[in-house]
């Protein structure tokens, strides 16, 4: 087909796509570049240096950030693991236990944290902890994180399970496997790529959260985002840019991992 007749092509759309990618990546790249700036000022460029990365690990604020990072990590690991387990069981019931009355309700409940604005979830959770008089601290952050991680773990798990035919488990049971064995020996191994992506997404979402954590954390308990927010309120400093760049790398590695697992698996499926 001659190019002039290709109705799919619109002039300028490619330029806008490239502009879009530039807008998406420019701020992140700029911060990453400036995190290597030797100058203590964020405006003047004085040459390449790793001093702010050294500062992050050994500087005067390093103890605060180390503790915040540790809290973030513990919360993200625990919340993502719990949410993934809950989501796996729920997806099995929703997709593999026939039709039932509470199916729509269960799906609605699982997607509720996605539909309610974050600030509203934050307010509601704070009020809830206040009403039942739990002292705010690491535990309240963890509980809130488990809840909002569930839908993010659920999405890839459910997508993966929809791609696995029930006949594998049927075949196992025809060969006298019990239901429990069919679940643990057949369905779970086939589900693994979905479960891993679900876990990684939940982990990133937990690591990222600022608004809800900011409401339900107790005084003196910080996660990395709340610690960064507190520091940024006093002005953007070079060590914040170094921490940001490190976190950026963690997120990108995790997402790339999740993507590659999904892709390799798709390629094998074909």
């Amino acid at each position: 087909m001659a190019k002039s007749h290709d109705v799919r092509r619109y002039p300028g759309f490619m330029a806008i796509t490239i502009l879009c990618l530039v807008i998406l990546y420019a701020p992140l790249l700029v911060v990453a570049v400036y995190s290597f700036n030797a100058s203590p000022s964020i405006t003047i460029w004085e040459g390449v240096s790793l001093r702010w990365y050294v500062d992050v690990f050994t500087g005067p604020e390093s103890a605060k950030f180390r503790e915040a990072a540790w809290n973030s990590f513990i919360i993200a690991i625990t919340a993502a693991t719990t949410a993934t387990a809950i989501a796996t069981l729920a997806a099995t019931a929703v997709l593999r236990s026939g039709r039932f009355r509470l199916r729509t309700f269960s799906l609605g409940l699982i997607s509720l944290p996605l539909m309610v604005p974050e600030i509203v979830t934050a307010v509601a959770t704070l009020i809830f902890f206040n009403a039942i008089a739990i002292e705010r601290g690491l535990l309240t952050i963890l509980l809130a994180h488990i809840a909002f991680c569930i839908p993010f773990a659920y999405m890839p798990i459910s997508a993966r399970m929809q791609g696995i035919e029930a006949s594998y488990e049927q075949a196992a049971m025809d060969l006298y496997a019990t239901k429990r064995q069919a679940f643990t020996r057949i369905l779970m191994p086939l589900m693994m790529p979905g479960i891993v992506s679900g876990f990684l997404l939940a982990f990133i979402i937990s690591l990222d959260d600022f608004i809800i954590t900011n409401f339900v954390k107790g005084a003196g308990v910080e996660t990395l985002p709340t610690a960064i927010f507190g520091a940024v309120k006093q002005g953007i400093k070079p060590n914040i840019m170094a921490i940001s760049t490190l976190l950026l790398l963690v997120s990108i590695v995790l997402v790339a991992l999740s993507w590659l697992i999904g892709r390799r698996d798709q390629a094998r499926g074909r």
Partner: protein
Amino acid sequence: MAGGGATGGSVQADTYREARTWLLLPAWLVLGILTLAPLTIMLVYSFLTKDFRGGVVWDFSLAAYDQFFFDRGLFGDDPPRIEWTYIGIFWRSIWQAGLATLLSLAVGFPTAYFIATRPERERALWVFLVTIPYWVNLLIRTVSMRFLLRNEGPLNDGLMAIGVISEPLAIVNTNLAVQLGLFYSYLPFMVLPIYAAVERYNFALSEAAADLYAPRWTVLRRILLPAVRPGIVAGCILVFVPSLGSFLAPDLLGGARNFMIGSLIEEQFKGNAGNWPFGAAASMILLTLVLILLMVLARQSRKGEA
């Protein structure tokens, strides 16, 4: 992907019928206790009396909603007039979120269309490129945006160096900065549903129209856009809803004059100056607005399937 809610998918088997309740119990318990119950208690709190040290006194009161909508004068005995302060903040938030949505649509539609018309092998990579920034910490993205846009920032330096401007553009602490921040925060939510819709679109329709001498842009307007409308509506709502309640972009990019709902609510729960019932009431009003929008979305997607 994100934002649209968990989709049901088809029921494929009933292998685990007997275990169903046990499989669902953890999800019901956790989400029931930590999501549904808190929303209910928040509704209750919005009808209570505020305590002066933060928190509430358990006395039924309509004061929070009254304060939101009406001005009764300093001593509470003047004839009530409409209180515009909070309605104004909501209105500004709707306006800001709306402009951010339009900006996302203007950039997101061509991007989604371009990606959907790439060879199949390339598409996943393009989608991946657009979604990566979404997974980077929102706080860090917003801080990065502020760093880039501020008066002595790299954007102004660059523009002045090449002589486009002689004075730095004051972008930070304006409405435009907030819109850019929101656009930056939620753009993938616009691109993904439109991409999905264009990918399913039957290009034979465009070709038929072109064969009948419809110009390129007429084909876009009269054939393509109506066909992918459900995707566009979904994208707009998925950007608009989180923008409406956002806190970080207005707080870090907008400054004090560009206050949005999120900051209004946050203020009620910080320190001793807060008013919990009022914060709960404002949250309820925001939640109601959002649920109405999501119902529109649900109807649209049902239409899209039909």
